[in-house]
């Protein structure tokens, strides 16, 4: 039994080792889906991920600002990324989540279609945003390349910035 345990532990440490050795070169992200695209946000910008619950509509805001909700006593704005990215609104289902992001003092919840996974992408596998996009105003930080797919990495601080 203990041999087996050791084996598992060894295996785990083996798995972790490559990451530990070049931790500086790895970016940790949380991946999620909006529409048909996979996006990711640096894990450090995420305060928590919660299941959807009721919110209060706020007047005179763009359609992608759904309103505000109560997270343990704080009033936090809720932004629908589908609408923000120009997709039609969709009813919330079992996979819908609110990702609460925090950069500095700015906090907001973002509605996403579903989560994929926590990702570790090596820095050399992240390319710059396409040239056609103005890098200053863009929400896109870069494009991560995994074995079988491409993930758009978003800038959390830009998402949290009021643009209306």
């Amino acid at each position: 039994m203990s041999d087996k345990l050791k084996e598992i532990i060894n295996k785990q440490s083996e798995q972790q080792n490559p990451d530990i050795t070049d931790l500086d070169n790895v970016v940790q992200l949380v991946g999620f889906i909006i529409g048909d695209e996979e996006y990711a946000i640096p894990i450090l910008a995420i305060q928590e991920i919660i299941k959807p619950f009721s919110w209060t509509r706020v007047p005179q805001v763009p359609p992608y600002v759904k309103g505000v909700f109560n997270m343990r006593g704080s009033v936090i704005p809720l932004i629908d990324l589908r609408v923000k990215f120009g997709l039609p609104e969709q009813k919330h289902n079992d996979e819908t989540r609110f990702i609460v992001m925090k950069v500095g003092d700015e906090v907001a919840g973002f509605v996403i279609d579903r989560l994929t996974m926590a990702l570790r992408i090596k820095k050399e596998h992240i390319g710059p945003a396409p040239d056609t996009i103005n890098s200053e105003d863009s929400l896109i930080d870069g494009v991560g390349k995994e074995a079988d797919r491409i993930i758009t990495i978003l800038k959390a601080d830009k998402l949290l910035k009021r643009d209306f």
Partner: protein
Amino acid sequence: MDEFQEILQDFLVESFELVEKLDEDLVELENTPEDLELLNGIFRVAHTVKGASSFLNFDVLTHLTHHMEDVLNKARHAELILTPDIMDVVLESIDLMKALLNTIRDTSADAGIDVSACVARLDKISGGTGEVETPKPQAAPAVEASSVKPEPIQAEDSGNEPDYENMSDEDVEAEIERLLAERQEQDKAKRQAKIEAGEAVPSAPPAPEEEPASAKSDPEVVTPPPPPPAPKPVVHGSGNDDAPKAAAPAKKAATVEQTIRVDVKRLDHLMNLIGELVLAKNRLIKINDDVEERYEGEEFLEELNQVVSIVSLVTTDLQIAVMKTRMLPIGKVFNKFPRMIRDLSRELNKKIELEISGEETELDKSIVEEIGDPLVHIIRNSCDHGIEQPADRLAKGKEESGTIGLKAYNEGNQIVIQIDDDGKGLDTTMLKDKSLEKGIITEKEADQMSDKEAFTLIFKPGFSTAAQVTNVSGRGVGMDVVKTNIEKLNGIIDIDSEIGVGTSMKLKIPLTLAIIQALLVGVQEETYAIPLASVLETVRISTDEIYTVEGKSVMRLRDEVLSLVHISDIFEVDRIMDGGEYAYVVVLGLGAQKLGLIVDTLVGQEEIVIKSLGEYLKGIEGVAGATIRGDGGVTLIVDVVALMDMARNVKTSAVASASNAAAQITLEKTKASDYIIMIVDDSKTDRTIMRKALEPLGVTLVEASDGQEALNTLKTSDQNFDAMLIDIEMPRMDGYTLAGEIKKYNRYKNLPLIAVTSRTGKSDRMRGVESGMVEYITKPYSADYLSSVVQRNVNLKSEFLS
């Protein structure tokens, strides 16, 4: 270094307090120059600041206070009479002192401010009788430069507080020697007294030892021996010398402990926590109500009730207690006005008296900090524009000197600060003319304006009645600042004025900023909170009472016409539900302005905690913030000030019936499956039977297992339903209630509701009709019958039937 910083902090806090006191006392002194006690007090303050600043090496400050002290000392010994001119110089030096203290606070050094001119003037005053007068061109280190002069006077006259700062080194040595000698003498005498006392009662020392011994043997000895208590007084007598000494520090310690300086941040944090607690309390009360409803008559309810009421009582008390710790007497703000009035009256050549009352009235610290500026502006305004020149006053038969009254008092949940003057009053025609001239209002507006509204013109930005800009006022900025600042505090301003008699301004400010009483109102499915301070009354009106004048809705409220605006026009609420023939009007008042806000329902009054919407959503017009309600939901707080402005631009008539607008988006049906029918029944079997009966028609079927679920589906679905089959007996929400709820929506006004039930009684059928059901099918029924009823009600086109 840290230690120095700490001392510096204490020094600054103390000095600022002292200087503030000084200002006040000096002005009072000017009125009662013979009050020696007051003068002594002032002298002591100046002296303390000087002492402390010299210890911390603030040479410039020491230099200044030292010379000030000279003048005050002369006055103290009647060598000098404090004329207003001398007071001007003294007050000027106090201003410099403040400036220096500010510099010290910001930079930890007192460089950069030139005090030489003021010092020279102070010297001139004190020099009249003093023996040495050396005008110092620069802020030279005070200690040597002015060492000779004041020392002899002080050493003689105020023996208790010799001025060590200005002694030469030898003098200091001598003084120390003298004090040491004095001290040794005293100690000797004390020891002597002790010894004498001890000798006088030689039996005393052993006595205490005996006593505990006898106490130990107490259990055995039934009656304690009477002799031991006897020496006790003697023992005390021997310690006589020390006793008062020991008692004195103890007493002192007790008085020191009575106040603690606490960082405001800690109080703010505490206030936040209390806010959370208030929310939790609200939630508890709500849950208690729910439980009460569900378990009526159960025994544990009483216990629960008790706990809930205790919790809510304690929370309220706690909230008040914490609020009180943040309270400061408004006197803190009022204190600076005597000085200001004095300066202003000299500057304007008017005679003005200030009467202050209610300075002990307490206000939240943050409000005290904010209220100062508006008051300065109002009082300056009263001095400049209100009070007339002495000659004019006499000509009008008034007293030569004008009076400005400044008083504060509590009124309900508000603090009222009232500023009265007996000046010339506000002339409404003149105010209107000036505003027209400056393009602030239009001719039409001027005509319609009531006197009260005309008074508020003085708060318009850019408005000024002064012919020319003086040092005191006339820039047209001040009163605008007053209005914005007071409104920022959720306060309102009320002006009353009579030409020739005077003006009275009332600032009504809530006691605290964080927690307020609010009226909760409902519109459609949303709830909004309106600060109760701006709610004058609520009235229920029928929709016929609303008239439209020039595209705006108005109503008659007693003998005045009230303009109305619907809350859903302000907050872009979709009117999906019909309001019915009655509406509630919340009459909002802000100073002289009034507005009726039409809402669908009045939910109630609640204590709410104001929370900010955060950086992302700040600045939304009409929303002052948000609060979290007992059910955990967020409710927006209405910004009444902004609402008044927004209401002006809302053109749509308030209760335009929205019935037809959003409703009836019936699309062309092209096939049988375009028809959507909902089946609501709690029994799976019944649902299946209905499904089987309707499937042959080829229509789309949607199922729901109770009323609540059906209602949610209706609300959230983007499909248009063509008919509903509703069971009556269902958990959560029964069929009648469901039908009633559905009929509230304009969109479903004409949706055919078909009851399918085993209830066959006549009264049941009646209820069905009342709640808006069009058909009533009793179980059991044949599949064909059901199918034909549905076909009839949805107008199924015959070509779709196979």
